[in-house]
């Protein structure tokens, strides 16, 4: 219990945009206001990326398969979503926060942590946080909630309790009484599996979790158990980091129908790698590690990675990705997902190779990138990656079900 006493007196606010994607869609189309809205991949296999509170009344939850969501709430508006627009609005909000907050961390597309320790000398932290919330709502038009407390975990839990469009302050003295009656599901790191495990142990509320010896939690869940136990006690000393460097970039695709079509898979891989490589060059980064991941229809996930010299050029990345895929895909089993990841990123630009990088190729890449920057990343692509798109378009016209990408929220960690 000594550690609780050691907690520094910080004031952390957690801002979370309410049903962010839905709110953005509503800004565009006022008819959606007050109606159940579901955002997610258009196909049956996609998952719900975001859903409005109206649809939640029907039991729709984010992360749920679209097929199920549609069945639960047939009258809801289904929207495929537009990641680019969402990140634009996300940046608008970040900008407002950046102008006012002394120290902030963008935790995801719709979440920010602010360290406002010391701001109480003015009008009080709660007052300041409320004002910021009103400014955000007024300037961006997006509803937002916040939780104000002593550390990131408690603030986040408080935000969850404050939603929708609410605010909650949990001062130092009432952290434990606030947490105790809540379900363990509310602890940020407890996912479906951990929840199931803990419930099977008979743990329901956070208070019950705090009553378990820390050693036991460690035996059951390892390091995470200790961390979870601390969080249940309202202990979390992680600082608000203003900027965390991106460690990797990745993309993945789940298919409408599981497939063994190697030709199709390779085309898709080319398209995905190409898009990712463009992102890499746009951010002036280079990668030295490529990972290719596949998930078989029985959910067996396999991945292979390879270290390469630092590069940002398509041709090297494409060849490596294809080689890895060929090495990886040995079993003639149906595949449901394929993914590519670039890691070990450094910022910098490509040193050209005397024997490999001809001037023509360099200028081709520069021109292609210029076209992409102006007209979008799919404006120009390799024919070997394009065939897939054509195939999809053809299928779209003939069959009602089409393979398509689920909306993936790329969280920056």
């Amino acid at each position, binding site marked *: 219990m000594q550690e609780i006493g050691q907690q520094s007196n910080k004031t952390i606010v957690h801002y979370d945009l309410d049903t962010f994607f839905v709110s953005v869609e509503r800004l565009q189309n006022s008819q959606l206001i007050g109606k159940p809205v579901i955002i997610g991949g258009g196909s049956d296999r996609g998952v719900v990326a975001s859903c409005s509170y109206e649809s939640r009344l029907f039991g729709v939850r984010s992360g749920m398969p679209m097929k199920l969501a549609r069945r639960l709430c047939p009258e809801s508006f289904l929207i495929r979503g537009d990641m680019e627009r969402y990140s634009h609005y996300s940046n608008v909000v970040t900008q407002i926060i950046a102008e006012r907050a002394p120290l902030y961390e963008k935790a995801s597309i719709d979440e920010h942590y602010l360290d406002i320790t010391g701001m109480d000398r003015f009008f009080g932290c709660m007052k300041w946080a409320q004002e910021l919330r009103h400014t955000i709502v007024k300037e961006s038009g997006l509803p937002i909630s916040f939780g104000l407390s002593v550390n990131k975990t408690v603030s986040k839990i408080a935000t969850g309790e404050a939603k929708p469009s609410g605010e909650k302050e949990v001062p130092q003295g009432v952290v434990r009484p606030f947490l105790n009656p809540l379900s363990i599901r509310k602890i940020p790191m407890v996912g479906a599996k951990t929840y199931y495990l803990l419930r099977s142990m008979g743990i329901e509320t956070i208070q019950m979790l705090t009553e378990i010896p820390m050693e036991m939690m460690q035996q059951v869940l390892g390091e995470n158990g200790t961390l979870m136990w601390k969080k249940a006690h309202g202990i979390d000393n992680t600082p608000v980091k203003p900027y965390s460097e991106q460690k990797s970039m990745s993309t993945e695709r789940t298919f409408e129908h599981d497939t063994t079509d190697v030709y199709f898979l390779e085309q898709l891989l080319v398209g995905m790698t190409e898009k990712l490589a463009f992102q890499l*060059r746009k951010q*002036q980064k*280079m990668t030295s590690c490529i990972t290719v991941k596949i998930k078989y229809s029985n959910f067996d996930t396999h991945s292979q990675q390879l270290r390469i010299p630092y590069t*940002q050029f398509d041709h090297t990345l494409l060849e490596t990705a294809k080689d890895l895929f060929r090495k990886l895909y040995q079993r003639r089993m149906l595949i449901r997902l394929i993914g590519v990841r670039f890691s070990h990123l*450094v*910022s*910098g*630009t*490509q*040193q*050209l*190779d*005397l*024997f*490999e*990088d001809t*001037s023509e190729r*360099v*200028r081709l*890449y*520069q021109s292609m*990138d210029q076209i992409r920057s102006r007209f979008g990343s799919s404006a120009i692509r390799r024919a070997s990656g394009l065939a897939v798109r054509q195939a999809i378009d053809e299928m779209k016209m003939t069959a009602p079900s089409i393979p398509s990408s689920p909306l993936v929220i790329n969280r920056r960690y």
Partner: protein
Amino acid sequence: MRFVVSSTELLKHLNAISRVISSKNTLPILDNFLFKIEGTTLLITASDLETTLITKIDLENSAADGLIAVQAKIMLDTLKEFPEQPLTFNIDLETFAVEILSANGKFSIVGHNGEDFPALPSLAENHNALNLPHDLLLAGINKTLFATADDELRPVMNGIFVELSTEEIAFVASDAHKLVRYKRNDVKYTDKASFILPKKPASLLKSLLPREDSDVKLEFDDKNAFFTLNGFKLVCRLVEGKYPAYNSVIPTNNPNELVIDRVDFFTTLKRVSVFANQASNLVRLKLNPSELIVSAQDIDFAISAVETIKCEYEGQSMEIGFKSTFLVEILSNLSSEHVKLKLSDPSRAGLLLPAEKELEYEDVLMLLMPMMINA
């Protein structure tokens, strides 16, 4: 087997050849020096299988020819501590016992059978042979060695490519980012021939050659090369494989030409590159008539630097990016007062040449590939 030799003389020779011995040998015998007496000459050999270096000492007092291998480390460590004095080596070729008698002591070592030492490779019947001036060979190695690669995937790039023809001799090295070509037309060969000299023997030659005063006899076939110097003989296995067609990647049409004071350019780069991104070391050169703007920035730390140097520039205004470390390395390996930078466009290699020739018959060309900018 018995001989008497001066302690400092012996140490000098052993030190010179000891650099061949690799710290992680595959064969234990390679941790030894091989001593061989032939009449009044003592031949000492050190080898790492790839490269072998032999030195010769003329003896005044020796008896019975023979062959013995002695631990290199023990020899070096003891000899280092001797003042100048004659040492007597008594070697029993039956038991391989080595006895070193000094003015006031006796040192006993157990040697190894000299016959176990790997034999020298032999040259093919129709091998190439020529004499090279020692200063030419030294200049060729000095100018090019820094540009060799460290690339396991492309072993041919890890050496210096020496190309002989009826008109000239060319030394070429490249790591695919930079390339150096050093040509001399004061030495000609009767035929076309070439070989790739690995880095290790090249750097050994670099340290041995300054002490030479006569021509070096070079013999080579497609596997090995023998360099016979005054007191040394260096035998090395050559890098096998085909050297890339380097001439085709040297751009020939370079309408933009900059002439600049080498030292000014060098010191400016050194200063500005401090502010470059540590991972990429990118410096930008902006070329305008009569001035060169060198700039660098590191966004992560919000630092930047820019400097303008006077120069003569003929051509269109352009901006090109280079890795500062490479550019600095090239400039430090040129020796002329002014350098000429020839460019065609920002995605093609830039040529760096000495603006004024030091020697009538030499031709130095250094080339550097740019980095992609404003991608």
